[in-house]
């Protein structure tokens, strides 16, 4: 391995210059020659039979090139349970259902055409809560399953059941038991760049998708299946990702609008762009999954956890996405946050006529951790133990195996807890509280903590967790790194550049990342599960080593040495033991003991029997898929963290102000502190919005706040004073010791804030978001006479 020169430094992003000058091209900015504009008509009913759709007026509007309904297209099953279609046929199941699509020469004409479409509905009884959907005689959202067999219930045939040890027995032996019921709601990813795509066929009927997907290679597969259904069985698909205006999990599925663009492009023979408005983004983009969570935990007389028992009901909405599998990640904190020997987790997902849900940063972990960590505080109080001490007593340790069979190799949880405790001034606050000094007039201060465990070394969600990478040295000694990783703003390109430069021994200016094109870049399973720094980073280390080996073989002849005697630094190959000036890493330029990479490569190319220097690697980490019991080492390293907050609650208005916010993260090793802190800041604020203000409000399935005035994302004025605390445990499985960190920051925000609110006012907020209205309502319920 070459010396570390760039890894660990706060280097600015490679794409920052393009972004601060407005030069970066997002899908919103892209046009193709001859392009048409597609628009989608959504349902005006939550649940209804489609009796008739009259598109004749729309089709006659000048400038309209195609009008499609569910009747005009082949059957293209979409979604995790294959229960969705690009355009709905026969009936609609939610207000977000796509029923008609048009392509026209301008977006205005396309929109006008949609207004000319007449749809006749026959309304059906609808259900908007999982309870109603599970009631006897509830209307069925889907009458048939994916195999066209009749179904009897709205319950998804996707049971989640994790059993470790014997919960009932452990409960009987517990000294203290605490029970809670928690709810979370729908939230939107709110990517500032709205969704869009251009579908374009060439004359050979091959398809190019100008796209913003986080999963280009899995999307390729989905689109190929659609093309096959359209009769285009020999067509190929190329995906070219544009600059992506935010991901956060919203691009981990292929979505209806993408298939609609393909269908319209096929119908018209022209490239078709579909670009969402903000309202459409709120309406048609699936949300984070809402959950109703019942939890009971117990501990012995000393405070050691004895069992954790969790039952969840998830409102799936009308269709499944990959998000239907979020319980698989909810299991992570439920089974393995703190040492708890006996665990039971049962979850059921239920179809309703609401908007459907999908992956979002943390993938179920924020919901589950809200229940687990709120309930830990309840249990600590029951046992009369300080909440931080209680957590320290039960904290995971390095080199342990959890009940779900996760192998915890390195664990900085105790350090995170201690650092957050000390930074908060936890003991001083306790004393002040005991002395009655934490509330004055109508304001009360409180502190709370919550921790997290998340996958930090990839996640074997699919049979492969692999990543392909190619490195190529060009004629000028520049390194091109071809990767399947997608840059969604998280900074993977920059971190990969640092790792590639160091693993080869090059100047970072000589290294470029080539990505976002499935025709050019090798396969990768997707940009999800906080995996790219770890997975693509490992690929970069392996691939870089291979490049070095080849370079040294070439240079050996030039320098008359054995390859083993050579090293490389700053893009110069040199003899390791050659004499050099004091303080110089490289031998003198005229010594004959060194050769610049560029010169070496030209010699390699321009010689008889010449050669080139390329390397490839397919890195697939040694992690495991969960088995039939949902057990196995899903990730080959595990990320931990603790968030501690101090809040001030205004008892008159219910407003919660965050006075302190410490976010400690065991990241393995910091690859780029500035980018790492950027992830922590951003996730903490996203998590705080989830805790305090954000909610997609549905009234009988209809979204009523699909805009940024009524949907309350935190603004710069809602200051969350985040202080990142970076804990390094140097996990040997990670590249340069790193673990993933993209998602973890938003996981413990809500329970830490809820615990602090409880500490301040003695009222436990059990539903998100904890808006001023909800805080006041909870206060009134708890203290009806005051």
């Amino acid at each position, binding site marked *: 391995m070459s010396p570390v020169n760039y890894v660990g430094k706060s280097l*600015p992003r490679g794409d920052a210059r393009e972004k601060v*000058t407005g030069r970066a091209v997002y899908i919103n900015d892209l046009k193709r020659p001859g392009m048409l504009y597609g628009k989608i008509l959504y349902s005006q009913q939550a649940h209804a039979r489609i009796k008739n759709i009259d598109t004749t007026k729309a089709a006659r509007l000048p400038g309209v090139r195609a009008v499609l309904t569910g009747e005009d297209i082949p059957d293209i099953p979409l979604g995790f349970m294959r229960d969705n279609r690009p355009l709905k046929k026969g009936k609609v199941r939610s207000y977000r259902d796509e029923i008609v699509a048009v392509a026209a020469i301008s977006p205005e004409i396309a929109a006008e055409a949609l207004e000319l479409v007449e749809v006749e509905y026959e309304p059906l009884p609808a259900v908007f809560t999982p309870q109603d959907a599970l009631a006897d005689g509830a209307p069925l959202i889907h009458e048939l399953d994916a195999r066209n067999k009749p179904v009897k219930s709205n319950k998804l045939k996707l049971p989640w059941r994790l059993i470790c040890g014997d919960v009932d027995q452990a409960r009987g032996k517990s000294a203290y038991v605490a029970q809670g019921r928690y709810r979370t709601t729908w939230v939107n990813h709110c990517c*500032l760049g709205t969704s869009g795509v251009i579908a374009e066929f060439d004359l050979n009927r091959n398809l190019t998708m100008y796209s913003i997907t986080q999963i280009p290679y899995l999307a390729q597969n989905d689109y190929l299946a659609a093309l096959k259904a359209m009769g285009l069985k020999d067509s190929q698909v190329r995906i070219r990702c544009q600059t992506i205006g935010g991901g956060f999990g919203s691009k981990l599925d292929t979505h209806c609008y993408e298939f609609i663009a393909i269908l319209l492009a096929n119908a018209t023979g022209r490239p078709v762009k579909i670009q969402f408005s903000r309202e459409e983004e709120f309406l048609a983009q699936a949300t984070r999954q809402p959950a109703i969570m019942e939890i009971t935990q117990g501990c012995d007389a000393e405070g050691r956890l004895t069992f954790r028992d969790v039952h969840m009901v998830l409102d799936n909405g009308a269709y499944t996405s990959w998000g239907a599998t979020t319980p698989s990640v909810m299991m992570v904190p439920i089974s393995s946050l703190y040492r708890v020997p006996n665990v039971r987790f049962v979850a059921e997902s239920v179809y309703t006529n609401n908007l459907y849900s999908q992956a979002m940063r943390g993938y179920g972990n924020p919901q589950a951790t809200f229940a687990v960590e709120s309930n830990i505080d309840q249990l600590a109080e029951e046992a009369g133990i300080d909440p931080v001490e209680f957590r320290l007593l039960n904290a995971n340790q390095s080199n342990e195996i959890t009940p779900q069979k996760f192998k915890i190799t390195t664990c900085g949880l105790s350090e995170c807890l201690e650092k957050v405790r000390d930074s908060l001034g936890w003991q001083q606050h306790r004393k002040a509280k005991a002395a009655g000094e934490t509330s004055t007039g109508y304001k009360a201060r409180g502190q709370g903590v919550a921790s997290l465990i998340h996958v930090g070394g990839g996640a074997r969600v699919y049979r492969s967790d692999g990543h392909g990478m190619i490195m190529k040295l060009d004629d000028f000694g520049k390194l091109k790194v071809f990767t399947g990783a997608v840059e969604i703003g998280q900074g993977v390109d920059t971190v990969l550049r640092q790792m590639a430069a160091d693993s080869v021994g090059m100047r970072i200016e000589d290294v470029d990342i080539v990505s976002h094109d499935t025709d050019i870049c090798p396969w990768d399973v997707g940009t999800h599960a906080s995996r790219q720094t770890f997975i693509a980073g490992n690929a970069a280390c392996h691939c870089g080593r291979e490049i070095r080996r080849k370079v040294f073989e070439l240079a050996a002849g030039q320098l008359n040495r054995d390859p083993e005697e050579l090293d490389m630094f700053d893009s110069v190959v040199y003899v390791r033991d050659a004499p050099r000036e004091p303080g110089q890493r490289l031998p003198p330029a005229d010594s004959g003991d060194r050769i610049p990479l560029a010169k070496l490569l030209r010699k390699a190319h321009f010689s008889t029997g010449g050669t080139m220097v390329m390397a490839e690697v397919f890195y697939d980490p040694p992690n495991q898929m969960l088995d039939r019991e949902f057990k196995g080492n899903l990730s080959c390293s595990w990320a931990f963290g603790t968030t501690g907050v101090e809040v001030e609650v205004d008892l008159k208005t219910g407003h919660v102000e965050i006075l302190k916010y410490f976010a400690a993260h065991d990241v393995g090793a910091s690859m780029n502190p500035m980018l790492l802190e950027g992830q922590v800041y951003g*996730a903490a604020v996203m998590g705080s919005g989830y805790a305090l203000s954000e909610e997609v409000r549905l009234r009988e399935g209809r979204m009523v706040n699909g805009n*940024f005035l009524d949907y309350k994302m935190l603004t710069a*004025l809602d200051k969350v004073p985040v202080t990142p605390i970076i804990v390094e445990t140097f996990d040997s499985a990670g590249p340069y010791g790193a673990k993933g960190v993209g998602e973890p920051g938003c996981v413990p925000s809500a329970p830490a804030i809820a615990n602090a609110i409880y500490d301040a006012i003695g009222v436990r907020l059990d539903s998100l978001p904890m808006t001023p209205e909800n805080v006041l309502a909870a206060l009134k319920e708890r203290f009806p006479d005051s």
Partner: protein
Amino acid sequence: MKRMIEFELNGQQVTAEVDGGDLLLSVLRDQFDLYGVKESCGAGECGACTVIIDGRAVTSCLYPAMEAEGRSVTTIEGLAQPDGTLHPIQESFIEKGAVQCGFCTPGNVLSAKALLDKNPDPSEQEIRTAIAGNLCRCTGYHQIVEAISHAAGRKS
């Protein structure tokens, strides 16, 4: 009804044929190919389309194009020097990690410029107020505030 208007755009006098209903955002993007002016909400709520008009940060998605007549409009494309030298605020955004996905970045940079042109030494609260209309989903604002503060000449 269409009408020719004349205004200053990034330091140059330009003319544009605009309709009464045309918004400045679409005129800048469609007639002048200034794609750094981003549309995200179309309702003046997110600030991605911010431009500077006569020294004030304005959401161009609500601004009638005709109102630009005789005014001076600066978009993100007008900040760097022709030789590529970046404006100090742009440099600060790069150095301080204030950019992630980048979609809100032009708007945030321009709101910062409108602030610093008037108030070269703003407090953190003044900075936060100036960008309160510029939503960012990635950064949590911290590094943006830091970048603006840094650009104002303070060490943060």
